[in-house]
């Protein structure tokens, strides 16, 4: 089959580029706040060049071949960047779809005289660009997934604060599910903070942990043991009545672990251990 599209594209590359950029700018969804026109121009030019290079091979149907590597690489990195930058999937898809429109416009102009070839070429190029727009969407979703993963690990970090409540006393409110990964982070933060502050008592508050099963219990015991090895004591507070009963029925042995029903009572016992007394100030007479 004659490679008409490739010829036309090489000849009228600048027109295609211009029409494409115009299409993109005209699209009401273009986010000027997220990308400058200059950037858009450079990016589009780069992609168009490698696209023209690829169709020169005459292969319009299989984008998994070597000719398309550069095109796909550009599209991938573009989609991922856009996902990070907060573009919507629609805004990302419009990029390739508006190229289709630009190419069709130029083809129509060049092949006016030969309707049959025109239709054939349009169908071929449409299919090709549709596959490429799917590539952008896949990459976009991958980019979003990476963002979510990153956020999850950030949430893990920030949701396990170690609070210095008093000289020598640390508190760690744990909120949410306590899985192995989180326990690891909590343990690291806690041990580090014991060293940094020279604290001798750590209060682990589990009132925000929805389920305490054998796995969570083991994680807690591990944390308590590690704290001991550092020469500090660990008190577990916030054991709700229903959790206490459940732990007993499960058969978990928490003897050797200091437990308190509330943060307040844990704090009180920590003060006592530090030989501190909290008293109400006497009202002035």
């Amino acid at each position, binding site marked *: 089959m004659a490679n008409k599209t490739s010829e036309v594209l090489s000849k009228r590359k600048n027109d295609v580029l211009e029409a494409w950029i115009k299409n993109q700018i005209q699209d009401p969804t273009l986010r000027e706040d997220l990308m400058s026109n200059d950037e858009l121009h450079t990016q589009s030019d780069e992609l168009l060049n490698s696209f023209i290079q690829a169709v020169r091979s005459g292969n319009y149907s299989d984008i998994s071949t070597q000719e398309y590597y550069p095109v796909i690489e550009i599209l991938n990195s573009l989609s991922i960047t856009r996902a990070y930058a907060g573009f919507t999937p629609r805004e990302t898809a419009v990029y390739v779809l508006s190229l289709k429109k630009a190419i069709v416009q130029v083809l129509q102009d060049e092949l006016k005289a030969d309707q049959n070839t025109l239709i054939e070429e349009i169908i071929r190029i449409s299919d090709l660009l549709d596959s490429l727009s799917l590539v952008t969407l896949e990459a976009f979703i991958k980019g979003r997934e990476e963002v979510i993963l990153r956020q999850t690990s950030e949430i893990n970090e920030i949701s396990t604060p170690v609070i210095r409540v008093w000289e020598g006393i640390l508190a760690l409110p744990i909120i949410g599910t306590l899985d192995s990964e989180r326990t690891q982070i909590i343990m690291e933060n806690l041990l580090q903070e014991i060293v940094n502050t020279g604290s001798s008592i750590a209060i682990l508050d589990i009132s925000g942990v929805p389920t305490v*099963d*054998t*796995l969570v219990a083991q994680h807690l015991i591990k944390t308590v043991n590690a704290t001991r090895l550092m020469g500090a004591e660990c008190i577990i507070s916030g054991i709700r009545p*229903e959790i206490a*009963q*459940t732990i007993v*029925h*499960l*058969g978990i042995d928490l003897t050797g672990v200091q437990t308190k029903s509330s943060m307040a009572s844990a704090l009180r016992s920590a003060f006592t251990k530090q030989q501190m007394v909290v008293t109400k100030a006497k009202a002035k007479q």
Partner: protein
Amino acid sequence: MMISLNKETLKIVSEQDVVLFRQRLKEYASKIGMSLLNQTKLITASSELVRNILVYARQGEVIIEVVTDRLQTGVRVTFKDQGPGIADIPKAMQDGFSTNKSLGLGLPGAKRLVNYFDIQSTPGNGTTVTIIRWKR
């Protein structure tokens, strides 16, 4: 006679599914007005059994049902996997027995937390555990 009023099946393949499953289960239990203590027992027992699926069979499915026998209402959960199965069930049901250097409290503990506990297992074919916790 036992009637199932409401039924939902969830696939269990990863740690995230455990979290999701526990949340769904809590919804079912609180919808029928189960006491907080019994909810906690049901969810903790289920948490053990669903973890066993992940640890020993890697994947499986759970079925959550609201059931009634006309005298009482409760939640039935069925845990199914096609993992290695358990050769000696009485041994696995003993406190402290574990092939995983763990506490060995999952199965016996779960049994103590619910009103009905049934375990069927064929080595090489998989394991099915069914539990019921009544509303009160």
